[in-house]
């Protein structure tokens, strides 16, 4: 079975990459760089694609971040739910689509579907060595914003539809959620849809993360930091 590697030695050693079809929640307090962790885990390897759904950071910023870290332009696709509210005229392209607000789940669903079809079509027209459908890392940053706009029941169902699709197509999904803004029930409802959780806490000197679930294991707490380019560095 295909395994998604992170290219982060400490994590790959500990969990041996992510098996296809996994949905992982990144549960982190504010200011811990949850979105940077999510992006780092979403970096596409050779022949892979990344699709990001962003409610918090503009597509242009995300693209810069990925390019800075050596991602090929065609390997990344972004659905941006913030830029359009300031710039109504911003046009959609193959790899960047804009939604007026995170409220618009209908629009997001249609544009996500088009994005995935575009990538799958392209891989059929210009076949690269590897598996079919092409491996995709899908990242939502963040569920917290969605939950501020929409009801938990609706978001549960929405994430359920997405995570089922990820699982069926043997892709992986990464979802960030701020653990301090929501009650325990909300967090546990969302957790039901996941195969694993990356938990983040404030350690003595730096933030620390551990991976829970994913084959019944739990890694020790691992301190992490970001290099000047924003690349995740995990100790251990």
């Amino acid at each position, binding site marked *: 079975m295909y395994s998604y590697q992170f290219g982060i030695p400490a994590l790959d050693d500990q969990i041996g990459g992510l098996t296809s079809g996994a949905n992982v929640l990144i549960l982190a307090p504010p200011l811990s760089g949850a979105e940077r962790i999510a992006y780092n885990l979403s970096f596409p390897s050779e022949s892979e694609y990344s699709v990001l759904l962003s409610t918090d950071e503009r597509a242009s910023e995300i693209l810069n971040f990925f390019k800075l870290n050596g991602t090929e332009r065609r390997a990344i696709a972004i659905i941006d739910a913030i830029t359009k509210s300031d710039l109504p005229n911003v*046009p*959609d392209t193959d790899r960047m689509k804009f939604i*007026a607000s995170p409220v618009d789940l209908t629009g997001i669903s*249609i544009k996500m*579907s088009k994005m995935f079809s575009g990538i799958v079509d392209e891989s059929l027209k210009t076949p690269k060595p590897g598996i079919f459908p092409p491996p995709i890392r899908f990242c939502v940053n963040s569920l917290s914003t969605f939950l501020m706009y929409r*009801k938990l029941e609706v978001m549960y*169902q929405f994430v*359920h*539809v997405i995570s089922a699709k990820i699982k069926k*197509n043997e892709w992986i999904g990464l979802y960030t959620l701020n653990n301090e803004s929501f009650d325990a029930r909300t967090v546990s409802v969302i957790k039901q849809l996941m195969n694993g959780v990356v938990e983040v806490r404030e350690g003595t000197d730096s933030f620390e993360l551990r991976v829970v679930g994913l084959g019944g294991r739990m890694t020790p707490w691992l301190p992490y930091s970001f290099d000047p380019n924003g690349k995740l560095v995990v100790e251990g």
Partner: protein
Amino acid sequence: MIYTGIDALDGLLEGGIPDGSRVLFSIEPEADGQHFLISMLHTAVITGKKTLVIAPFTGKDAYYVDIATQSHYHLDCYDELISFLDQHDVEAITRQNPDRNACRAAWRDRIRSIVTEEEIDVVVVYLDVLSDYFEFAGAVSLFDDLGSDKPVTIAFEYFNLFGEEMLNSILRETPCDLVITLQSGAGVVSFFNYFTLHTVSWLPLPARSLPYIVTEGHIVPYIPKIVVTGPSNSGKTTFVKNISESGMSVDRLGVLGTPTTVALDIGHMASKGFDINIYGTPGQERFDPIVPQLARNAMGVILMVDVTHPDQMARALKLKTIVEGNAVVPLIVVANKADLEYSVTEEEIRTALEIGPGTPVFFISATDHRQCRAVIDSMVDQITRFEY
């Protein structure tokens, strides 16, 4: 009457939607179905109807730009006909009324005052956050009794994440006059969309699902396959060629010195707003093994017989059995070459082909374009209204 702007759908609804109706477009995940409501909105404003749009997910400018790029409709040209409640209005109303009941009352007042002051004919509502705040029934009931002197048509778009059973139970509680569900057939990715006429309160239409394509923001329903079959030399190829806007025939010169189809005829045409593909089968017995393949998943069957050759009725009956297989699909019998001399009657054909009174029999000449079109139009009616 309000048109949906989708010819095939307006045809099915016998003209359009009666004034004062409550309409629901229920979109399921991945279905590319937002153009249904947009098309209806566009048709309303170009026919001069005053319209209120409630779109809590976007700003007015972004909404206009989206519609212009996706559907090429320039709603800004009709700005004086359109009142708008967008994201900012929705946030303002919610912020000023933290209490749920007060918020509801504020919404009702706002909608009522716009509808009466602006003399609104049509309200277009994206339910999204409204159904989060007030539940589906509560959100829909905001539009009950708007205090207007004239009937106000209300069209809702609802993103149905909860599946069909949930929708049915919601609709039992809160009925609508017209309910259209939009779904997508998905494998690895979504590869086709279809709509279902779930409820039509003013017509006895059966619930019917039909696929559609979205081209440049326009909805075109289509019928993927109608099969034309019948004995050799009964005129199938002539018929398919005559009605097709484009198409081809795979044939060879036969023993009679005329061409005979050896694989199939393919034709493409439009009728009653539908895009249609037509497949003609070969008539010779030696091709019988491929006929079931050609006929697989057909939505309708046209059985063609030659009125000048009543001796071929047994062969026609055999082909009818092969094509129908175990499926129940609409059937039309075409008695071709009716411009020549013949003696066979409709009764004799019905008996020979074992068909009931519900199956139409057309006496035509396949060389006459108008008569062929009438057959296809009738086929479309059969497909869209046929009771299974």
